[in-house]
């Protein structure tokens, strides 16, 4: 079900596609330095940097079989792959790059998550690592821009994403900081983890549900991944006129923050629908908040206006889901 996942994923694909069209232009000037690569790759890198023609694909980008990246067997990567991931990783983590909106929004999302999880698990909000000892999963983790902060807050984080490339990027980026190096990234889907009977204290899936084929089933999977009395946090975009104006017309067509087509109007989920879907999956929604973007200060803030971007926090019911939830 997660084949068509998060906008981040699409954006990653889109940005890599652009690079293909534009030839072997490496997006970051620093990267074109051959010294950034080990000797055996320098030849390829300098050749690529010099060439302005659309090169033959260095190696089929989708070539490596799935299982190569599923784990962390990074040593079996081929040079072209790694160089390309490094390039994309830079854009994933470039706060001014294609993922800028997510970077801008991130602290606001995280402060909501931090305060709700602190209350849910009765953690000290004055602690630097309030989530210590909690198993948290980030479903649709992309390059890991949510997983890493969660790990810094002390959580034992698992990040999953259906796109192999994102997992590799996230893995490589997290390795540069000892506190985030322990994140377990895995290219898989929520459904597959459910089959493995994996469970987590907190399940977080931000900006994903509007891209899945069947939100109802997706909620069921998230619920199955949550331990009884555990917390579930979901954020998405409302299907309202204001959301249409802001997130589709504004962000995609006017501001060009997102590639056109990132969000399909008909697939957006309203808060009422989300609450119902979660309720059927035996998660009771406890709190909701909206995110508000102020174009003048260029800052996001938490508000009670859930008509555009919103986030919901729910508790998984302890008893087994009854047959007829109402």
């Amino acid at each position, binding site marked *: 079900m997660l084949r068509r996942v998060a906008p981040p994923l699409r954006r990653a694909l889109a940005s890599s596609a652009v690079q293909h069209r534009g030839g072997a232009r490496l997006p*970051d*000037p*620093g990267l074109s330095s051959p010294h*950034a*690569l*080990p000797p055996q*790759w320098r030849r390829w890198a300098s050749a690529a940097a010099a060439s302005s023609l659309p090169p033959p694909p260095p190696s089929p980008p989708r070539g490596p079989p799935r299982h190569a990246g599923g784990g962390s067997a*990074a*040593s079996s*990567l081929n040079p072209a792959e*790694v*160089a390309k*991931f490094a390039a994309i990783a830079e854009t994933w983590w470039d*706060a001014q790059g294609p993922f800028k909106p997510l970077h*801008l929004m991130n*602290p606001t999302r*995280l*402060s909501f998550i*931090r*305060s*709700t999880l602190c209350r*849910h*698990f*009765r*953690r*000290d*909000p*004055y*602690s*630097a*690592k309030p989530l*210590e*000892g909690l198993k948290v999963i980030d479903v649709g983790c992309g390059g890991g821009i949510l997983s*890493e*902060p969660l790990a*810094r807050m002390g959580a034992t984080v698992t990040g999953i994403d259906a796109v192999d490339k994102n997992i*590799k990027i996230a*893995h*490589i980026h997290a*390795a*540069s*900081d*000892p*506190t985030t190096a*322990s994140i377990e990234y895995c290219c898989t889907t929520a459904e597959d983890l459910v089959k493995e009977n994996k469970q987590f*204290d907190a399940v977080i899936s931000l900006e994903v549900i509007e891209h899945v084929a069947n939100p109802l089933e997706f909620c069921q999977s998230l619920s199955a991944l949550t331990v009884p*009395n*555990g917390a579930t946090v979901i954020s998405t975009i409302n299907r309202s006129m204001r959301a249409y104006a802001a997130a589709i017309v504004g962000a995609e067509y006017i501001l060009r923050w997102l590639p056109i087509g990132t969000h399909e109007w008909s697939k957006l989920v309203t808060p*009422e629908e989300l*609450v119902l879907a979660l309720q059927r999956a035996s998660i*009771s929604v*406890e*709190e*909701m*908040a*909206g995110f508000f973007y102020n174009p003048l200060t260029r800052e996001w803030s*938490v*508000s*009670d206006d859930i008509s555009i971007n919103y986030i919901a926090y729910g*508790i998984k019911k302890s008893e087994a889901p009854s047959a007829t939830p109402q």
Partner: protein
Amino acid sequence: MTPTPARASAAAAHALLRRTRCFAAANRIRTASRAFSSAPAGASEPQGPEKVGGVRAGDDELDVAIVGGGMVGLAVACALSNMPLTKHLRVAVIDSNPALKSTNYLKKDGIPDSRVSTVTPATISFFRDIGAWEHILQQRHAFFGKMQVWDYTGLGYTRYNSRDVCKEYLGCVVENKVLCNSLLLRLQEQKEDIKKMVYPTRLASLAFPSKSRNVGVAGLKPPSTEAEELRRSNLVKLDLSDGQTLYSKLVVGADGSKSNVRQIAGIKTTGWSYPQSAIICTVEHTAANDCAWQRFLPSGPIALLPIGDNFSNIVWTMSPEEASRHKSMSPEDFVMSVNRALDFGYGPHPNSSSLDHYVERLFSDFGGTAASTKECFEVPPRATGLISERMAFPLSLMHSHDYVSKRLALVGDAAHTVHPLAGQGVNLGFGDAAALAEVISEGVSVGADIGDLSLLNRYENDRKAANVAMAAVLDGFQKMYSVDFGPLNVLRAAAFHGAQYISPLKKNIISYAMGDRKSPLFS
């Protein structure tokens, strides 16, 4: 955890709580029962002292490396060690100054140092928050509740009184070495082993991580040494002159107006030198002085600041030639010169004049004049002797184009120097320190990388406006007084009178000088 006194960080937490409250309002679809009681207490491990999860970073790996252990650098260290969210950070201060080894209070007797700062109530409350103010109170300091500003034309004067703004004092004069020592003593209380924190050496070189880290390389083979290399390639490398090498997530440049860190980082500055030098020294009176005095002379302002007992500090701005002449003249001549400058020299006392009358009539319509409007002009106490060296230094205005870059933040004089005429420079620096520590704390609370540029930008946005405004006000003052031109003199005098008589404006000016952030005119 017990509530801590660190109000600064509590503010961050308050912000969190405030948001939390708004969620409750937000939550329209929320079910009635809050199943918190049934929520698991988690795998409740008590919050031990924070250790880096999993991989333990080496001793040479830091979170914050502060280059420069002056007042502002130590204030950053002290603020970080006082906030609940940042106290676990590994912080180092790099400075070869032997004074950083002090573990005792400085003696109150003896002659005060001539390098002093006028700290504003805003700075005092910052020092209280970080627990360093008690140490100041144990050492030499001088509160003052009155201030008189006048100029040589004899047309205007203004007296400020702390009563006008319902405060006990307008500010406090403290020796710079006392400020440093107090911060140091506070750090010693906070960190059991401060020796590990202070590196008594100098920075030899600094290398920022290249924009594109060798992500690909280490992703390929992660044996432990390469993992370490990768980690370090993402940090700032600091080579110290004693041969040690440190790695840090964030470097704080607190190394003064000629900041080495700023130059290495390639951050440009804007500014100009004033054709002025300042002479500073300590003088003695026959009785204690409890008022801050400032008189604008044709060559620049002279300030007489109380520093406790019968001592006062002189900050006298003049042309470089005059400065060198005043520096080399005999102490007796110098004292005479000072007394002249603070009394009848260059022009008459501002007494009730026809202009006064006009202004009073003009502004009486606005009603409600401040209490001190009635206060008469006073002549400052005469200096009886010069008791310290005279030091002269050139003045300049400098402003750094950027305060931050990736993994770097500049604070204090490294980011901006202003004209010293209102003693605002160090207060701006402490404002920087408080804001930077706050931003780092916010970053920790949301799990950000503390060297992340988008986080540090919030510090820059916060401080740049405040610092530029103050620099502009002071520069304007300086420019206004560098011209001796009849009509302008009258205007200046009128401005003084305006300030003296329109009490709301006067209150605003006092508040601004005391460290409130609002501009005096547009509030």
